[in-house]
């Protein structure tokens, strides 16, 4: 379907100052000949002037409240990040210490097992529980803490 030349020119009017030189020239030539489109252009200019004349301003109260809220939230995020750093460092320290002490603990559990006449399965299970228990407890605590923090974030206003 052929597009109406008037529709085409009105679309150009709606694009405002985004027209290329050739489009501007084409529009200017058309407006000289077409009274309807000229009237359309004048109405469009008036409508846009009216739109631009609406002066909406943010109040200082809103700006200050926003700045305060953003600063407060930034401080909370910074604290959370610092906490995560500490948790990360603690995990690293625990990992290193566990790696270094595992052989010694293994020997200790083996000696206790032999002294008490326990089977290998029993003292080895004891070793595994003893070795894993602190990590399990810390993980549970962190999960609980994480859930607590996410609740706070959701309700924070």
């Amino acid at each position, binding site marked *: 379907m052929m597009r109406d030349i008037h529709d085409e020119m*009105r*679309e150009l009017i709606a694009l405002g100052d985004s027209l290329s030189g050739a489009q501007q020239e084409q529009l200017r030539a058309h407006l000289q000949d077409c009274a309807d489109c000229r009237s359309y252009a004048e109405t469009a200019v008036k409508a846009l002037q009216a739109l631009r004349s609406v*002066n909406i301003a943010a109040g200082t109260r*809103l700006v200050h409240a926003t700045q305060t*809220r*953003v600063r407060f*939230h930034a401080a909370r995020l910074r604290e959370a990040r610092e906490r995560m750093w500490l948790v990360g460092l603690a995990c690293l320290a625990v990992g290193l210490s566990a790696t270094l002490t595992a052989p010694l603990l293994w020997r200790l559990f083996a000696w206790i097992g032999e002294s008490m006449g326990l089977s290998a399965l029993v003292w080895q299970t004891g070793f595994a529980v003893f070795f894993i228990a602190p990590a399990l407890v810390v993980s549970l605590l962190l999960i609980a803490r994480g859930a607590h923090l996410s609740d706070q974030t959701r309700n924070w206003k």
Partner: protein
Amino acid sequence: MNAAAHFFTMGMESEASVIARGLRRRDPDLLDRLIEQYQHRLLRYLIHLAGSRELAEDLFQETWIRVLERGHQYDGKHEFSTWLYAIARNLTIDYLRKKGTVSLDGPMDDDEHAPLEPADKAPAAWEVVAQHEQAERISAALITIPAEYRETVVLRFQEGMALEEIASVTGARLGTVKSRLYRGLNMLMSRLKGAQA
């Protein structure tokens, strides 16, 4: 690097990349400055998008909180305002979807939205009345236009955004933006004409 070279490099650094660096650091002074710099433009956009000043003010605050949280995602290669408007837009869409009452894809209900309030800085009484009437007339006309058209018209003619920037903010293709602009302007003109008659 000597001082002159350092100064030259800093001078060459674009505003957008300075903002991107500051946002990655969550620099509160930078955020204060940005909030002041974009206060009127952002609020104006949100009012036209959300349809009420009260809601727009809530979304204004939420937008800056989101900017703080997601500042590391801004790459500094595009205009900051484009990124900011996209965040504000997404927040508004999320809010309206959660409420389930209005959609950005359809017209808003006149009764639910108070007319926009003009800025309070008129020097003379008759100007106040005239400005207020004008603002009410425009806002009443705008609010009846489907949101996607209203948004495009406001971004283009009030915020002075380029068509490509509008496409980036709204996630629409350039052709769609042009068509929305044309249709939106036609609707605005006919509503204003109707209001005058």
